[in-house]
């Protein structure tokens, strides 16, 4: 199951995503929560806390600045750019490659 949550700012996308993810986790599903927002706050709603949310953002910025490498595989993304959230949810803050090298 792959679910994306969209809507106007302030409508409750992040809150809805977090509750969905944790509810699915409580029912025994293996859940990955991906924060694709340019201003990622999903960690706060999942309950991983302010400093961990900030840490994931900093990690992503290091990738954006070229100070850290992109993750080559999904497992690697979840491992290196992720954090454990309650109810077994794994959170990862991700970004797309803005200027991929040709070829």
């Amino acid at each position, binding site marked *: 199951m792959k679910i994306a949550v969209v809507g*106007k*700012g*302030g*409508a409750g996308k*992040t809150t809805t995503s977090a509750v969905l993810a944790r509810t699915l986790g409580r029912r025994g599903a293996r859940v990955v929560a991906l924060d694709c*927002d*340019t*201003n990622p*706050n999903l960690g*706060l*709603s999942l309950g991983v806390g*302010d400093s961990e*949310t*900030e840490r994931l953002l900093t990690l992503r910025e290091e990738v954006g600045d070229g100070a850290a490498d992109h993750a080559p595989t999904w497992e690697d993304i979840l491992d290196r750019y992720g954090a454990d959230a309650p109810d077994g949810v794994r959170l990862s803050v991700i970004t797309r490659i803005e200027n991929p090298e040709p070829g």
Partner: protein
Amino acid sequence: MSVTGSLAESASMIRVAFVGKGGAGKSTIAGTFARLLARRGQPVLALDSDPMPGLPYSLGVGVDDHPIPDDVVVAGPEGGPRWVLRPGLDAAAIVDRYAARCPDGVRYLQFGNLWGHVVRLQQAQHAWSQVVEELDRDSWHLVGDLPGGTRQAMFGWGKYADTVCVVVEPTVKSMHTARRLLTLSGARWGPSRLVLVVNKARDGSDAARVSERLGLEAAAVVPHDGTAGRADRRGAAPLDSAPGGPLAGAVDGLVDHVVSLYSLGREVTQ
């Protein structure tokens, strides 16, 4: 009351942009700010760079899709910008023709709404950016509204502003976004002044908590009195539905504060 020559000559015009998390109340406060400044006899141009704009509602302009037509730009010279303003059209003429007329004399410039892919707005966006860049600095006070979050702000869409108002509601998520936005002062286009506005404050402790966490005093505290929410449900401007309400009062105080930052003198302080 009209702008005096001495005012336009002696003091710079206000150039303010509102940023913050989605739903924090940027558009509500920006639109109200623009109208209250205009009521002081000032020429105000409201700028919207949100492709799904909320600003028209708080301005009370009555239309939400008011695009700049694509044909105001033509293909630019080889090696130059992709689009340039059509020969014979300058920034002032575009504002005159295509900025919507709002209550209290505010004019309002947007790209047009994004109903499909972003490509549709390319020409209008180029036109908008060029107008904002080339507009005579003495003709208008600029009051801008950016989309929620940090993306546009970090990419310099508010660089016309020398004052940036960070609107924050007393939630951890909103403060998280605000803290990122406060780093804008270090950006290449960095505004010279950052002003904190606490919105939807339920009591005095809300504003204190936000100020403490962000390390900045609030220039204005807008109470959560329900009028903005009720106006939103009807698509009405808070200034029209609750003209004497606490929101209007708090934003008028914010106008006072910003005016004082520019030393605009008594002419604009009512």
